[in-house]
């Protein structure tokens, strides 16, 4: 435990929240200060966006493949099939994101209903 972590341990969960809130605001505030002064074609921007996409990619795959809680009751193969169907639907029919979301939610509700009636 370093100095940062021991001070966090003292103030608990809310101190960590405060810290991540500031970390999130930092980029927004920095944007206001730098607006009109920096080029977005710089190498730093390229690197930042690659890292961000890799992070969000990892988060998304994790949430779908290794979920905790209610979603873990849906078999992995069904989760993957739902994702593929929605991606296919969106790209093939050029439909908006919200329609893909509705389709996915309906497919998940269907499996949930199956689980629900199987258990009763």
């Amino acid at each position, binding site marked *: 435990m370093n100095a940062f972590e021991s001070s966090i*341990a003292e103030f608990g969960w809310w101190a960590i929240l405060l810290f*991540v809130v500031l970390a999130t605001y930092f980029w927004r505030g920095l944007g206001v200060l730098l607006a009109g002064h*920096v080029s977005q074609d710089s190498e730093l921007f390229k690197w930042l966006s*690659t*890292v*961000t996409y890799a992070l969000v*990619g990892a988060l998304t795959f994790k*949430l779908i493949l290794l979920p*905790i809680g209610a979603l873990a009751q849906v078999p992995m193969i069904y989760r993957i099939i739902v994702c593929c169907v*929605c991606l296919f639907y969106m790209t093939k029919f050029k439909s908006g994101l919200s329609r893909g979301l509705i389709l996915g939610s309906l497919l998940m509700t269907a499996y949930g209903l199956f689980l629900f009636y199987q258990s009763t």
Partner: protein
Amino acid sequence: MDQILQELKDADTFKQAFRLGVKAGLYGPGPVLLAGMIGFGAMGHGVGLSVLQTTAISTFMYALPGQIVFIEMMSMGASSSVVAIAVALTSTRFLTMVLTLFPQIPKARKEPSRMLSVHLVAMSAWAYCMRDFPKIKPEIRYGYFLGIGLICWILAIPGTILGYVISEYVPIWVTIPLVFVNPLFFLLSFVDVVIPLNRIAIIAGGIAGAIFYQIYPEHALLISGLGFGSLVYGIDYFRRKRKPSA
């Protein structure tokens, strides 16, 4: 939506633009954002946070990917400094978003503080303003942005509470689609990523994440994001450097 845009072209005061922004927010990004926040509320309940904690995250962070990184990593038992780094990295996209959006709004002598209003910059308001700004008068753009941004931010609060509360009482077939909304939203939004480098980063990070979560759950996100993201960038950088000389 087209009707709002038509009215926007005729609008010339801050107030009119603000009102139209609120309207556009309710019809456009509002429902998707609300669904995402309801899903986040359900997730907060799922990892054992209190309703106050979950709502505070949505209100003050107001960045869904970062919010989910935060509660996921906390529930995995990651140390606070690792959580802070991962959240900070997830939010770097705001810098690019603000840098592309704000220069399109001319500065007025008396205007609501940009240091405050920048909190409203999120995927929802950003995408709509980027699309509509070129079509509307520069002087009323700030009002339009504030309208969309504010209504979306306000929706995030009841959305989170609703998601948390209903997941406590509803059967499993309601909870499952609720917690699935956000991962599916992220996945489907990747379809619109056009830069090949970023597409490769998503896939590399995704595969690395799926593997490392099973080995080092508390550091998986940092390894995949910072590690593999930088690796993809590095390979691309050296490829670009070599090309002109070849």
